[in-house]
């Protein structure tokens, strides 16, 4: 049923409020939330591969709501929903009784919906939107225990790294869209030829790789992943197996058909992948905390996957697909098992855990099944993936085969540490009642462990239906996988065996090796984690410094800054618009006007320079009354009378009020202050004058005043045109003016009353 395809992410989104509401009401039945991913799993199976559904979203920008189901998307969607069902069930038991369980499951559902949307999207912009939603949802999940500073820091780190670098990827996507002329993945992948010669191609490769590397914790951006261990166990299990970190690898695989002829692409993928494998392997061996140990082993796996995608042979694509599947199965299972150990035995320390097998037989079984798959023991699906990986990687010259050997050995060690040693040996002392958890928490891990064995015994179950279409999608052409046939030649068999042997030896001697490795403190700062901390601190101190400088709390500073910015902007516009201008037309000033202008200017300057209140008031009064006289010389009789009146009342009010206030001859400014203020004032005045000069140099349109002169008598029966304008042509303006006066009066009266009452 192809029409189900767009419903998959939509229904996942729609389930969020239902889960939140239902679990909040009946927490005991929280496990039922697992029905949502289970149902979606069925829907994914029901959509035939090759289905494409597209609707317009922002047609003007060429962005569509388009989904596509192909081999790779199908594999990912099945992993997301299938493992998701186990995770939901497990989480309902793990966080049983937690007051925020409903919120947790709702965010988990959001995360799942975003993952489904991202892997099914056929439009790069749509994919990016879902991609960022996964970052946001993972932020909420990692920081679920928000009361702990460790959680908050880890959540912030994950968000900043993945979203921050995600913005680079957005730039890459935009460039890719511009180069291709479309954002539709299917169109880009069908005709990747345009990239070969395009000038953007190197940038696209670098930017998109950066985003994927951050998401998939590739060296040197791997440092955020172990911090994300602050999250509850179900989150770690989900993030590390089927979701989040796999999304970066998924996008690399998705775009591989377009870029696989680019040398830069191949070099970046194999280079970063190799370094990631190496650093993850070393860091995994140092770690005592089982959860962090698993996290570093995820880094190794992600490096392996990236390397495999970057290798140019069909076999590598098959190896990548099988390893992706195998890793998801065993990693989810092991994380859940460690979560059970943590909860039941009270520790995750590899040095302390031992001998729990008799008390927790089912947990031990699940962990053992997954661990054997991880170690690549024959009979488990892990052995196929291991042989494939080894075969693919050993065909190439350089250091990569050595790194791969070390990484494989490290995986064996981690598998042993997590799946074997906590359950074997002498029983540890614990004040807890370490028992197997209820079935809800065991169902997922056991099923995943058993699947690893089942697929190992009967690989044809997945070979043609899952692996082959996915490998074909990575390569961009059909391929034969022949999973389970004898692939490995003798050399590969020996190498696999060697990795296993080294791994077992290191595992047995790990208690002696670990302190030496842990002593190498320089490894703590491997990668730019210190640079991240420094950058974060710098952001804080820079913004603090800027705030302290800009937001000083000084009203005078605010005023000066506002004026300088405003007048500076005006000056810029003036200069850009052709500079200074001088109005040429109009009558020359007559002698009285010269005299009045001089008087006004003198009054204004005197108001600034004088120190006594009365003297300053007189200077201001001179300006006011001088203005009235100036109006008279300009034909503004009404204006002059109003100005006289207002000025007189103003002065009376000023004297009445200022006489009640202390008035110091000193205006509180020191010489430096005064110089600064004078500079601001001169600058502001000069720009203001220049702006007005420029305005006055432009031609004037007198249509409206001409009309007013014509219409005043016939239409308004008034001979004083200014009065007619005020009470007739622009009467509403005058009404507004009266309203302003009234509001000022009301505000003043209220203010006076308030102050008087406060004093009583």
């Amino acid at each position, binding site marked *: 049923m192809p029409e189900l395809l767009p419903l998959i992410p939509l229904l996942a989104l729609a389930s969020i409020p239902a889960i939140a509401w239902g679990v909040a009401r009946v927490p005991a039945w929280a496990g039922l939330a697992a029905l949502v991913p289970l149902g979606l799993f069925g829907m994914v199976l029901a959509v035939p591969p090759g289905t494409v559904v597209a609707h317009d979203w922002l047609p003007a920008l060429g962005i569509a709501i388009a989904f596509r189901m192909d081999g790779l998307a199908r594999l990912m969607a099945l992993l997301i929903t299938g493992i998701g069902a186990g995770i939901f069930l497990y989480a309902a038991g793990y966080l049983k009784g937690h007051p925020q369980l409903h919120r947790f499951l709702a965010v988990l559902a959001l995360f799942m919906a975003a993952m489904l949307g991202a892997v099914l999207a056929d439009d790069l912009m749509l994919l990016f939107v879902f991609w960022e939603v996964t970052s946001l949802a993972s932020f909420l999940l990692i920081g679920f225990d928000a009361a702990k500073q460790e959680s908050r820091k880890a959540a912030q780190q994950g968000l900043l790294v993945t979203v921050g670098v995600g913005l680079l990827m957005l730039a890459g996507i935009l460039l890719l869209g511009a180069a291709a002329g479309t954002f539709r993945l299917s169109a880009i992948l069908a005709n990747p030829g345009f990239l070969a010669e395009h000038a953007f191609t190197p940038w696209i490769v670098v930017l998109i790789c950066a985003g994927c590397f951050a998401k998939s914790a590739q060296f040197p951006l791997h440092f955020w992943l172990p911090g994300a261990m602050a999250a509850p166990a179900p989150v770690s299990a989900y993030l590390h197996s089927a979701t989040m970190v796999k999304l970066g690898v998924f996008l690399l695989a998705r775009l591989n058909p377009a870029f696989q002829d680019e040398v830069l692409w191949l070099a970046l993928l194999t280079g970063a992948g190799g370094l990631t494998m190496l650093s993850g392997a070393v860091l995994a061996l140092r770690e005592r905390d089982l959860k962090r140990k698993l996290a570093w082993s995820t880094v190794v796996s992600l490096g392996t996957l990236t390397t495999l995608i970057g290798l140019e042979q069909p076999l590598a694509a098959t190896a990548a697909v099988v390893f992706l599947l195998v890793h998801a199965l065993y990693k989810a299972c092991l994380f859940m098992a460690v979560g059970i150990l943590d909860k039941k035995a009270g520790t995750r320390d590899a040095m302390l855990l031992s001998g729990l097998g008799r008390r927790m037989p089912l947990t031990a079984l699940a962990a053992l099944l997954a661990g054997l798959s991880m170690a690549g023991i024959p009979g488990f699906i892990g052995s196929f993936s291991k042989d494939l990986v080894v075969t693919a990687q050993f065909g190439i010259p350089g250091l990569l085969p050595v790194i791969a050997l070390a990484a494989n050995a490290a995986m064996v060690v981690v598998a042993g540490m997590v799946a074997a040693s906590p359950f074997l040996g002498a029983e540890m002392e614990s004040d807890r009642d370490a028992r197997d958890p209820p079935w809800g928490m065991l169902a997922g891990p056991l099923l995943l462990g058993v699947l690893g064995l089942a697929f190992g015994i009967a690989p044809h179950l997945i070979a043609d239906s899952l692996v082959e279409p996915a490998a074909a999608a990575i390569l961009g052409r059909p391929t034969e996988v022949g999973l389970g046939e004898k692939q490995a030649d003798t050399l590969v068999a020996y190498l696999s065996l060697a990795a296993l042997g080294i791994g077992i030896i290191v595992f047995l001697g790990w208690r002696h090796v670990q302190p030496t490795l842990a002593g190498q403190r320089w490894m703590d700062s491997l990668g730019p984690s210190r640079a991240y901390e420094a950058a974060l601190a710098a952001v804080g101190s820079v913004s*603090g410094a800027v705030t302290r400088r800009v937001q000083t709390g000084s009203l005078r500073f605010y005023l000066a800054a506002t004026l300088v910015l405003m007048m500076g902007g005006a000056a810029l516009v003036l200069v850009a618009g052709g500079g200074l201008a001088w109005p040429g037309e*109009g009558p020359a000033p007559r002698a009285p006007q010269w005299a009045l202008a001089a008087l006004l200017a003198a009054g204004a300057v005197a108001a600034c320079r004088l120190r006594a209140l009365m003297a300053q008031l007189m200077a201001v009064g001179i300006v006011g009354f001088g203005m009235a006289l100036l109006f008279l010389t300009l034909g503004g*009789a009404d204006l002059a009378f109003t100005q006289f009146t*207002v000025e007189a009342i103003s002065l009376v*009010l*000023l004297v009445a009020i200022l006489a009640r206030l202390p008035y110091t001859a000193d205006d509180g400014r020191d010489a430096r202050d005064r110089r600064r203020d004078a500079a601001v004032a001169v600058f502001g005045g000069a720009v203001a004058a220049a702006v007005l000069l420029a305005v006055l140099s432009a031609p004037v349109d*007198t249509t409206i005043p001409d009309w007013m*002169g014509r219409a005043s008598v016939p239409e308004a029966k008034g001979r*004083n045109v200014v009065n007619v304008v005020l009470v007739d042509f622009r009467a509403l303006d005058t009404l507004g003016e009266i309203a302003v006066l009234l509001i000022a009066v009301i505000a003043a009266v209220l203010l006076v009353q308030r102050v008087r009452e406060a004093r009583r």
Partner: protein
Amino acid sequence: MEALLALLFGTLFGAAIYLMLARSLPRVLLGLILLGNAAIIAILAGGRVIGTAPPLVASGETLLAAGAANPLPQALALTAIVIAFGLGAFVMVLVWAVWRETRTLDAEELRLAEPPGLPAAGAAAAAAAEPPEARP
């Protein structure tokens, strides 16, 4: 004439700024009044000096004679004068209220909204503001 008005505007504007930047609030008030005057000159100049006779229609005529001043900016300036007066009067009361409430007329001491030390006096103050359980 127009250039002279523009220069006068700049002078009044600059003087107004200088006074408004003073610490003493009464001087800020005087600056505000000067700023109003400057604005009125700008409005008036904006209509150009197309004539200097009062814009009155002579009796018996129906048309404003040539050489009369532009009536529109005069009407706008009248509105501006009144509004500047209203604003000035309100600020006078405000200055009085500030003095009655805070017993200071120093603009630098008016820090009710932003007390000294906030928002970020420094790393030490920020750490002290952090709730204790959130510290590592």
